[in-house]
């Protein structure tokens, strides 16, 4: 099986979907000749032409709204928001429109729309190129929210997102675009939306994470296994909405201890919902306080390197949290 980077896997998924279905098209800022600022769509403009890989005006809400209209008319749009930080102008179109279209039309109009957006910090992007925005959208029934952490999942999940009859927000951990490598089968396969992945098996405690943090969680788990003999179950959530409660609870029933890691700021973040699920549906298995390791409650990730590093969770911070939890 060929090994490739996360971003190469994403590109391969789009390439295959464009080849499979003439209704699939890509739009977004700089997705055409430039191939995207991260090069996610590199080569697709040359291969499929300007009528299917379309540079949008520099206006995010219209990227999503055009996608909604086109999806309602039977096309299959892949809309790229250049950075998740820039998705906020499109919030109304995503939350009021795409998410509610099927419900508010009594099941008559559905929106098969994929919105891709690189998210997350640690790349020197400062306040507006580092945000984790998933919690805004996981609060919204009608949307699906997907965050891959491996090249295999990136390809398989993106293909599932494109084929899903609902609006799917596909948040890509941009710090891992080139640093995360893995084996990816050539050709057709999909990974189902709505299923978490057991990234590591252990029985001492459960670590729940997604995106870059899932990648770091596995690294931290290996470190504490080596250094402390602590064996972590690591659950890569992969899909944040709908929630795979079954996998989440199955791990907790085994370990009784939970650490939830996310790089968004802590309060009201996605981890709060996981904690609520564990305490309400897994209470009798609970063996320690549910722990969250997340970004601090400051407005955003600062630019200056030491400030950024102070903000970001990393394998060392995760390992420290694991040791603290394991001590219960």
């Amino acid at each position: 099986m060929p090994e490739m980077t996360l971003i190469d896997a994403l590109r391969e998924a789009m390439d295959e979907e464009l080849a499979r279905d003439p209704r699939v098209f890509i739009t977004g800022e700089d997705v055409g000749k430039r191939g995207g600022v991260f090069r996610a769509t590199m080569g697709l403009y040359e291969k499929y032409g300007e009528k299917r890989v379309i540079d949008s005006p520099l206006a995010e809400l219209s990227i999503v709204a055009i996608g909604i209209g086109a999806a309602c008319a039977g096309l299959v749009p892949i809309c790229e928001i250049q950075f998740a930080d820039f998705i906020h102008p499109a919030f109304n179109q995503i939350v009021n429109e795409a998410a509610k279209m099927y419900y508010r039309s009594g099941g008559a109009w559905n929106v098969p729309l994929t919105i891709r957006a690189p998210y997350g910090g640690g790349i020197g992007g400062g306040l507006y190129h580092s945000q984790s925005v998933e919690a805004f959208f996981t609060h919204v029934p009608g949307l699906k929210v997907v965050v891959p952490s491996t090249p295999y999942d990136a390809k398989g999940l993106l293909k599932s997102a494109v084929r899903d009859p609902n609006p799917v927000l596909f948040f890509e951990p941009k710090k891992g675009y080139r640093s995360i490598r893995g084996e990816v089968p050539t050709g057709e396969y999909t990974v189902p939306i709505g299923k978490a992945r057991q990234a590591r098996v252990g029985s001492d405690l459960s670590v729940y994470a997604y995106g870059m943090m899932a990648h770091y969680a596995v690294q931290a788990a290996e470190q504490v296994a080596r250094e402390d003999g602590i064996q972590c179950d690591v659950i890569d959530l992969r899909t944040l909405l709908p929630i795979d409660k079954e996998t989440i609870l199955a791990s907790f029933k085994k370990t009784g201890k939970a650490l939830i890691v996310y790089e968004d700021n802590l309060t009201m973040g996605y981890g709060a919902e996981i904690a609520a699920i564990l305490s309400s549906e897994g209470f009798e298995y609970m063996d320690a306080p549910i722990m969250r390791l997340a970004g601090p409650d400051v407005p955003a990730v600062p630019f200056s390197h030491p400030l950024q590093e102070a903000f970001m969770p990393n394998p060392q911070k995760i390992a420290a949290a694991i040791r603290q939890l394991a001590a219960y």
Partner: protein
Amino acid sequence: MTVLTATQRSQPSAQLSAETLLDMYWHMLLARRTDERAWMLHRQGKIAFHVSSMGHEAVQVGAAFAINRGVDYVAPYYRDWALCMAIGVTPRDFMLSLFGKAGEISSKARQMPSHWSHRGLNILSTSSPVATQVPQAAGLAFAIKYKRENGLVDPNDATQPRLALTCLGEGSTSQGEWHEGMNWAGVHKLPLICLVENNNYAISVPIERQMAVSRVAERAVAYGVHGVTVDGTDILACYDAVRAAAERAYNGEGATLIEAKCYRLTPHSSDDDDRTYRSREEIEEAKRADPILRFERYLRERGILSDAIKQDYEQRARQVIDEAQRYAEAAPYPEGSSLYEDVYA
């Protein structure tokens, strides 16, 4: 940019048969009488909310007749009862919506009344935040163009949508959503008609507080699309303007911004009191320019409409509306469990 009036217009409407002209009149009348009934039901405390299209009938019915009704995409706004009715939404559908009853076609009675949607008639579902439908309509128009250019449809197949019509009030053109939608329409030369029903007020705020230009249509220049202003109380002028825009769209000549100047004869909605912001004299004057009376005079002058036909139409309208109201009042409410349906496709 052109200003079309009743006296200096291109004349596709001259080709309309007496039968079609009467059909247009019938739809205006039925829309008005249904609308009046809704206000009455609200005063009686039988329904909770109504938003009216009174005064806009010429624009809306004229527009409906100028496109391929039920086939071309329409992304309307809440004031478009007459438009949607002329496309095929029935008084019974509307009554079910007013009463919030089971079987309601647009949303299974989830939405407030007048939030249109009809998949079978290619009417896109509408929300309440204004102008959101404009970039979506540009998306519908984009899909039409995409399918043509990528060989997914025959461009001359009239059983397929060949344009998207979207409507909004003049106040909604202050929204960024409107701008972004119009910009796409211009850049990509989309088969879009943007019909601004300019009634001078966005609830209470007059047009001078929305824009510094004297006409909405002037804004077309900024998007590189065709812009026209039309007398929105003259149904034939409205028909002609939309017909010309439709031809442009069908022929791949791009989008048109039409500003139809009309007057809202009622408060914004049943929750509004327009006495706080406009004089009774102003409204009385507007009532003298009622688009239905105007068209009626036109048809009578040409011997197309008679007292007998008028009387027959009034009677039929009453029957249709009575039946619709009875049906809706007798219909059950939605099952509580339907709350959980249609969250995901």
